[in-house]
């Protein structure tokens, strides 16, 4: 369903634009009255932080931690399902709790459009609006064209600083009103498949914008502003960006601009470089990841948080996530298969339904999408739990080997995974096919 990108800017914005044109200083900061959410966890005295990050266990670069947010105490590594418009498609909030979701994503751009951030604020914030008692994270939605589509950026796009002022004026209000535990800074993202000076431009712009985000952020004791590292696939640019963000002493950091079509070999190297350079005592979030294999590799390299539409989206196309990889329920062979989707899975779907039954539902009935989404998210949450507990118990390498053996029973573990595991100092030789002597 196409989103109409245009919505008329709030009246205050129009008058501000006019006063800008007259060269008057536009006050970005207004006293913004807010109330802390009911039942919020008391926050430490550290300025500009509304979270606590305690590492509970390590294995080389991998770490398992407890992340205390205003609305929920989380265990990392963790996966965050995406609920763009204030709902995870086809699942109710109590089911999400049953599955074990800890943090859910919402999208500032989409919610600002419908039902508008003012309405969400009036009704008590996004938590109350969707009745989600645990943690929320809002992304700016750069991939959906926040900056490209925001009406006040058209026409003045030649002057990016003007454009940002106008875009961000809206943005800060929106994210503060929506009220998520973690809010992502507005950054300038470019696809990793692009080359040339645009990447450098985007990286420096992201750094300039983080200062404005920090200045405009009205609720640092309630909401955590995460910076996003950009810089494409260029290690030099990434390094500059990381150092710039670390200097700002933010509550947490994200590695952005990946998961957009780049080759896996470049992907893991950027993650490895960033996790090595980002501070030890703050959470590290790799945006847009993703496939279970990618999550295991990134966790081995020292990342903590992940988000992706993949599990729920692929469910709607009839694909289930299993230890062996994926199971395509639409396949005709499934029509006679009376086994559960995954015999090792403890979810409601695997305990009650056969592949044959789900096959008869997928792509024809809403219930098929619901049941598969349920299973896929349960799988991702179980993966998160397993990562956390295996690191805490000192069994992380065993977990990784077991995971890779199930996914690559012939021992054909991809080269990039082997390289990444080498850097992460995890021995996966038992999973790899041995060279034959004959």
């Amino acid at each position, binding site marked *: 369903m196409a989103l109409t990108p245009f919505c008329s800017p709030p009246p205050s914005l129009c008058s501000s634009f006019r006063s800008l044109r007259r060269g008057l200083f536009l006050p970005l900061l207004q006293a913004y009255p807010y109330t802390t959410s009911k039942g919020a966890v008391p926050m430490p005295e550290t300025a500009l932080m509304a979270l606590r990050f305690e590492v509970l266990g390590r294995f080389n670069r991998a770490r398992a931690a407890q992340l205390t947010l205003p609305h929920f105490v989380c265990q990392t590594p963790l996966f965050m399902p995406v609920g763009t418009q*204030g709902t995870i498609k*086809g699942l*109710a909030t*109590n*089911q999400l709790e049953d599955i074990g979701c800890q943090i859910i994503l919402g999208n500032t751009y989409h919610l600002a459009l419908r039902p508008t951030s003012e309405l969400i604020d009036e009704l008590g914030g996004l938590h109350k609006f*969707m009745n989600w008692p645990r943690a929320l994270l809002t992304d700016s939605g750069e991939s959906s064209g926040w900056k490209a589509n925001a009406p006040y950026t058209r026409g003045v796009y030649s002057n990016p600083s003007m454009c940002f002022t106008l875009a961000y004026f809206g943005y800060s209000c929106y994210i503060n009103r929506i009220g998520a535990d973690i809010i992502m800074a507005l950054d300038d993202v470019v696809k990793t498949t692009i080359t040339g000076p645009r990447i450098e431009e985007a990286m420096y712009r992201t750094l300039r914008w983080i200062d404005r985000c920090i200045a405009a952020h009205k609720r640092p004791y309630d909401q955590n502003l995460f910076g996003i590292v950009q810089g494409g696939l260029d290690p030099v640019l990434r390094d500059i960006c990381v150092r710039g963000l670390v200097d700002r002493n933010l509550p947490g950091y994200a590695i952005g601009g990946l998961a957009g079509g780049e080759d896996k070999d470049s992907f893991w190297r950027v993650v490895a470089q960033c996790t090595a350079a980002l501070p030890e005592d703050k959470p590290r979030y790799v945006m847009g990841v993703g496939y279970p294999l990618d999550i295991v590799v990134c966790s081995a390299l020292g990342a903590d948080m992940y988000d992706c539409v993949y599990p729920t989206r692929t469910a709607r196309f009839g694909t289930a996530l299993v230890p062996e990889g994926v199971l395509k329920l639409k396949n005709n062979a499934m029509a006679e298969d009376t086994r559960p989707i995954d015999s090792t899975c403890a979810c*409601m779907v695997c305990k009650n339904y056969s592949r*044959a039954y789900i096959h008869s539902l997928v792509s024809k009935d*809403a219930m098929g999408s619901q049941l598969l989404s349920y299973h896929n998210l349960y799988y991702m949450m179980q993966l998160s739990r397993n990562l956390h507990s295996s690191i805490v118990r000192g069994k992380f390498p065993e977990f990784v080997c077991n995971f890779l053996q199930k996914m690559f029973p012939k021992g054909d573990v991809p080269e990039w995974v082997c390289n990444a595991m080498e850097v992460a100092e995890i021995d996966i030789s038992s999973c790899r096919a041995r060279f034959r002597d004959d």
Partner: protein
Amino acid sequence: MKFVLKALGNGTARAGVLHLDSVAAAIDTPSLLLSTRKGLPLFTSPDLLSSFPSPDSRLLHVSPLHFLEGLSIKTISKIGGLHQLVGLHDCGFAAFPRDSIQCLPEATATNKTGASFETPCGRLLIKPAEYMEMISSMKPELWATLADEVPAWVSDKRNKTSVDRTIKWLDECIALSPVSGAIVGGSSLEERRRCAQEVATRNVSGYWIGGFGLAESMDERPALLNAVTEALPEEKPRLICGLGLPEEILQGVAAGVDLFESTYIYHLTLEGFALTFPLDGTQINALNLAPNVAGTDPRKINLRATAFRKDATPIVEGCSCYTCQNHTRAYINHLLNVHEMLAQILLEIHNTHHFLGFFGLIREAIKAGRFEEFRKDFVRSRYDHLVEDSSEPVLLAR
């Protein structure tokens, strides 16, 4: 399966109790059969089914035709039948081919070999022998024999043929018991009576009344229904298919039907409606109905309306369904606007809960001996607000 009559209301409305092996508690009738698609509700996921009032929500209608698309009879048998297939062990299933939402009888294509239905996978012809195989693999608690249902406008000759055919198929199917004998007869009083009398002589454990909801008018229906029920023995349960609206259900109850399959919840849900009339026994009148757009049915609200954008109250204050306990009208309004599936899930839950409550009111009224009064009040409440507010010009909207 056991059915016991408990009370007879004024007229032929009756209250009874149905005992099924798979359902722990006895089910009071008149009761609703929840619509399903391949055995599960259309939107309400199975883990949320337990939040519905029990045991009245434990009767589900299943159409064997749904499984023709993707699941072979062999596979269903291998899995062990319906209960195993859909993971609902404490529910009772009533199986009959017609599903008034998607599998509609196609009278022009039905012939002496089998009954034809328009389904999402095209037009299908089901023969009695095939049908029997489907039923034996599914193992429902209640099931109806194959019927040749015809709409109200067919010729008398076609109607007569449909009755003869249905009775013939009944005799072919009757080997497996317990079975509900199918009764048809279109819009002809004599044919209806004849069919009912014939079926009454067979050794069946109940009756499935077909052929309604196929273009007969509300006015001619009561006589046709009575023509059927008068010929049937009192002590066996009667199921009916095709009566959707609450007013039509009340017609069925008045004629002495016990179990109803209705598409009302489905249509309400798809269109964004939620039922709001009071269920606590207070008289439904203009004062306690939803303030609404003039001319529309005040017993329900349409959550797409912008009036609900900021409404932070539940659909019905005090309703114990999952939706009202957890979400607000504003949230559902937002979900409908952004076309999210959760809207239909939440609406189906509330509407099912509420409609089951409506059946509760019916049963209470029968037991208290005031069913006809209840029925009149309910039917009148649809238009009450128009009379009340006669000073303003009335827009007769839907």
